[in-house]
């Protein structure tokens, strides 16, 4: 069960008023109900049909996830933006491999990336911009985001386990950054798995998100190389509980009670790495699990409505749990089939385990057999992977009725360091400098 404490706006959610001259409407200090929330934090479930939570309705007045269109999210803060930040509409996620053994060169890249990220999240072009410079040189910025708003772009960096094999970092690897075990049913494609580091770009405009990754990749050539990347749309979970919960590509509502960006207590308890949790450099950070979950769309669409609803444990129209009337009504787990997705994923079935999800739907065309290459790009943040994703996925992989219709085909884990404090700070400073 999660304790909900006094809610104050997270520092990172303070809008950057310098850029657009407008304030993000998530900072209004809305307080959800202070009564104990039902501890189901939209946790864990790979596809996350969500059970109802008591505070959701109270939070619905925050106005949804879309925020002020075009506004900028502050890049600086105690935590990186892009985790508790209200989920944007679009994703471009990229995993990189290191291509240098020169530690100084890698640190230089992290500083260059930070500078570029600081500008792009403020709605500004990289470096000297996309035009007006030397005619003989390619412009610093690629230019496709010119004239577009910041679109609430957030850029979030993470470091994979393999990075700690480089640069003499072996003794700095956090114990909580575990290599995931092989789960039953996994069919992982090496070319969509792993990575020394990652950048998650979320924005309300796909062009803004793609522009950001493209420019970071370009700056990184020679030092890092893109290993794989994933585009996402149609957020499948929300960190500002909406009246209308987003649906996944199976047509089911998702993320009804994910952890909200304003729920300081649950964020501290389940998402942010606390002092003493492990190496000091991770304090204020989080751990990210990314899974590319392919859906067998065509066979799912041929499943009867009854089967579909049984698989999830909720109805398709309203999204209410079995035997309940409304999507936000607290679920009665025992009314569901033993292998129902919601039942297995629910915190009450998992000793209260809760993670913060930011997953997106993806569709990468068709697969050569005419089948839609589509599914969920699952992103989950947690304080410790060993206590978050691993036990949840173990439970799901073993029994979940949904497994007939999904397959995990890509996988990666990352240590997401704390936020960039100010204009002199940079991504990964706490890892690469000994002062912490």
């Amino acid at each position, binding site marked *: 069960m999660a304790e909900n404490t006094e809610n104050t706006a997270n520092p990172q959610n303070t809008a950057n008023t310098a850029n657009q001259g407008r304030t993000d409407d998530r900072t209004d200090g809305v307080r959800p109900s202070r009564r104990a929330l039902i501890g189901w934090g939209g946790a864990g479930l790979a596809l996350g049909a969500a059970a109802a939570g008591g505070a959701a309705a109270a939070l619905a007045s925050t106005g949804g996830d879309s925020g002020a269109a075009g506004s900028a999210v502050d890049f600086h803060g105690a935590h990186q933006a892009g985790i508790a930040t209200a989920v944007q509409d679009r994703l471009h996620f990229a995993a990189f*491999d290191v*291509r240098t053994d020169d530690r100084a060169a890698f640190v230089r890249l992290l500083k260059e990336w930070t500078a570029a990220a600081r500008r792009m999240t403020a709605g500004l072009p990289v470096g000297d911009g996309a035009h007006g410079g*030397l005619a*003989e*040189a*390619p412009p610093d910025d690629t230019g496709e985001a010119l004239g577009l708003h910041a679109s609430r772009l957030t850029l979030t960096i993470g470091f994979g386990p393999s990075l700690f094999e480089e640069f003499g970092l072996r003794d700095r690897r956090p114990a909580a950054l575990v290599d995931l075990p092989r789960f039953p049913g996994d069919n992982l494609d090496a*070319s969509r798995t792993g990575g020394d580091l990652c950048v998650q770009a979320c924005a309300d405009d796909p062009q803004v998100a793609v522009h950001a990754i493209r420019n970071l990749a*370009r700056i990184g*050539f*020679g*030092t890092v*190389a893109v290993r794989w990347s994933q585009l996402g749309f149609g957020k499948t979970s929300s960190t500002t509980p909406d009246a209308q919960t987003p649906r996944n590509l199976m047509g089911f509502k998702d993320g009804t009670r994910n952890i909200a960006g304003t729920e300081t207590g649950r964020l501290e308890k389940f998402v942010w790495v606390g002092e003493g949790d492990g190496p000091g450099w991770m304090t204020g950070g989080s751990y990210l699990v990314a899974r590319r979950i392919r859906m067998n769309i065509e066979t799912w669409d041929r499943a009867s409505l009854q089967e579909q609803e049984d698989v999830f444990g909720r109805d398709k129209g309203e999204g209410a749990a079995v035997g309940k009337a409304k999507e936000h009504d607290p679920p009665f787990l025992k009314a569901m089939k033993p292998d129902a997705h919601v039942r297995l994923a629910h915190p009450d079935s998992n000793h209260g385990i809760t993670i913060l999800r930011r997953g997106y739907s993806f569709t990468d065309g068709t697969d050569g057999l005419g089948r839609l290459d589509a599914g969920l790009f699952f992103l989950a943040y947690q304080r410790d992977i060993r206590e978050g994703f691993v036990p949840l996925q173990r439970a799901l992989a073993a029994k979940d009725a949904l497994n007939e219709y999904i397959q995990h085909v890509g996988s990666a884990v990352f240590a997401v360091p704390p936020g960039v404090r100010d204009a002199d700070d940079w991504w990964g400073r706490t890892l690469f400098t000994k002062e912490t």
Partner: protein
Amino acid sequence: MRAVRASFVTAAATAAALTAVTGCTEKSKADGDGVIQVTAADTKCETSTTSVPAGQVTLKIANTGSRATEVEILFPDDRIVSEKENIGPGTKYTLTAEVKAGSYEIACRPGMKGLGVRQKLTVTGGGKVAARDPELDKAVAAYREYAQEQADATIPAVETFANAVTAGDLEAAKNAFAPSRVGWERTEPIAESFGDIDPKTDTRADGLEKGQKWTGWHALEKALWQDKKIGAEQKTLATDLVTDLKDWQRRVGKAEITPTSMANGAKELLDEVATGKVTGEEDRYSHTDLSDFRANVEGAQKAYELLKPVAAKNDAALTAELDKQFAALDALLDTYRSDSPADKAQNGYRSYDKVTKEQRKGLSDAVNALAEPLSKLAAAVVK
């Protein structure tokens, strides 16, 4: 092969304009303004004056040597303003050219080989050509010389290939294919600048325009590796390939090359690798892509090395990075060397169909790592 690039494309047109009045033999014109007596011998090249006014310049050439010679008027970067080849021993020739004010050289090339014997020529008057850093002129001249060497060296190599084809010797033809392409691949942006040669020699099946007959290396590549046969048509193609490449060899000296186009040409060579070689599209029948790959990189490195003294002064960090990335790519390519008998036709490299997807990714990453800083070389040169 790719579409003609703007950076080189002005070549032929500019040269043509400058040489519009050349080649008129024994044009009767009294000695005086703009007339230079040139005495070309086996080891010397004497000129009657080192300074003439801008406009029509006439060379009255006498070959007093024992071998046929070639006389040229050259820009400071060794681009040819005008030339006459094959002036026999004991014969005379009058060469006329329209020349703007600036610094030039007259070159006599006994035996029509090498750099020849040089004399300075100053052309005075208005309409002066903008002066350029002599160091850059030196770089361009050296690159032009390199391009000429590559073209010269290609001819015997392509003749070996063509002879094997005309002899109907499939194995010998396969083994001679990749080596015949090296000089071309090293200097491809220059070859492509002429517009008409590349489509005849280096077009792939998917690059054909409607109605265009498929000729050149890749048509033969398909015949040798896929169809595994040499017929009358292939023999004609081989002969034509030699003819077309001799045309290229003759014209290399007239290509418009600037420090910027050299730098961009180096980058374009890496682009060739990134789009055609890394994917295995270029040599899809023979899988000799790594041989071409290496030649592209060598050509880029040559252009870079020549520009480096100037670039290093303007942007030392950039040249340090380029040195590092060229070395890294070289080292990576070395790991693909092969002396296996099975790879005999690969010019010393592994057959590209034996290079795994993961290895191709590694090669692609190394090319990106080099090409990105290389795209900044032109700016460092003109700074």
